[in-house]
């Protein structure tokens, strides 16, 4: 099946490579988000990598999301932003709770930083995805 529809270029070549590259982007972005407190990276770059990988999948026609699922993405994005707000407002209390279980130089370190990285990365990635969908696909 080949065809161009509303900015989507869908051939078997683009679909196959988008599956591979989108998965790579997903894994790399989640790695960057999870290791934000240890290595260069964090919520913004990790979220941008995940969002661009998923956007590539969307653009190459490997997935055809319904419009209702985009509404669901908006809800998830808002929940992630709300979670980030809660994490940052309660940072002081959260830090003292988390620090007893954590150790330096491990992935489960970071405390508030790790949680805020994850929430911010989720928000940024879904935001990038919604941006690609609304600019290119619609």
């Amino acid at each position, binding site marked *: 099946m080949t065809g161009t529809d509303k900015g989507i270029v869908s051939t078997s070549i683009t679909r196959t490579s988008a599956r591979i590259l989108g998965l790579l982007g997903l894994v790399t972005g989640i790695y960057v988000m999870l290791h*934000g*407190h240890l290595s260069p*990276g964090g919520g913004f770059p990790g979220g941008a990598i995940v969002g661009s990988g998923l956007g590539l999948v969307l653009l190459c026609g490997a997935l055809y999301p319904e419009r209702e699922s985009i509404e669901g993405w908006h809800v998830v994005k808002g929940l992630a*932003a709300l979670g980030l707000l809660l994490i940052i407002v309660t940072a002081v209390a959260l830090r003292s709770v988390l620090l007893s279980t954590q150790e330096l130089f491990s992935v489960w*370190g970071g405390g508030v*930083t790790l949680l*805020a990285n994850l929430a911010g990365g989720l928000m940024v990635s879904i935001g990038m995805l919604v941006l690609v969908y609304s*600019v290119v696909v*619609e």
Partner: protein
Amino acid sequence: MRREKSGTVEKNSGKGRVLVLLGLSLFVFYCSWLVVAYYQVIDPFGDRTASIHYLDLGAIETYSTNLVNSIVWDYRGYDTLGEETVLFVAIVGVALVSRAMRENSTRRMEVDASP
């Protein structure tokens, strides 16, 4: 009648001007009091207390050995929250505009196709 009305208006505006001046002077007094209190409580500008604190205690306080990340997401969390808010509002705006454009174009297509 008209003169009376304008007279009352002028009288009111004069009273209002006095009130505004009073409020402004109170505001200036409050701000100068804040500046004096700030200089009494906070270390003077150019003092490196914050940077030394980050260097000494950053890793131990946040358990995030990447100090850049600990400063961006923990010490300056509200700043980052504001950045995220800007991004969020921008994305919502783009989604709303594109949705409105799409609904406009579909309505036009329906109007074209209806007769």
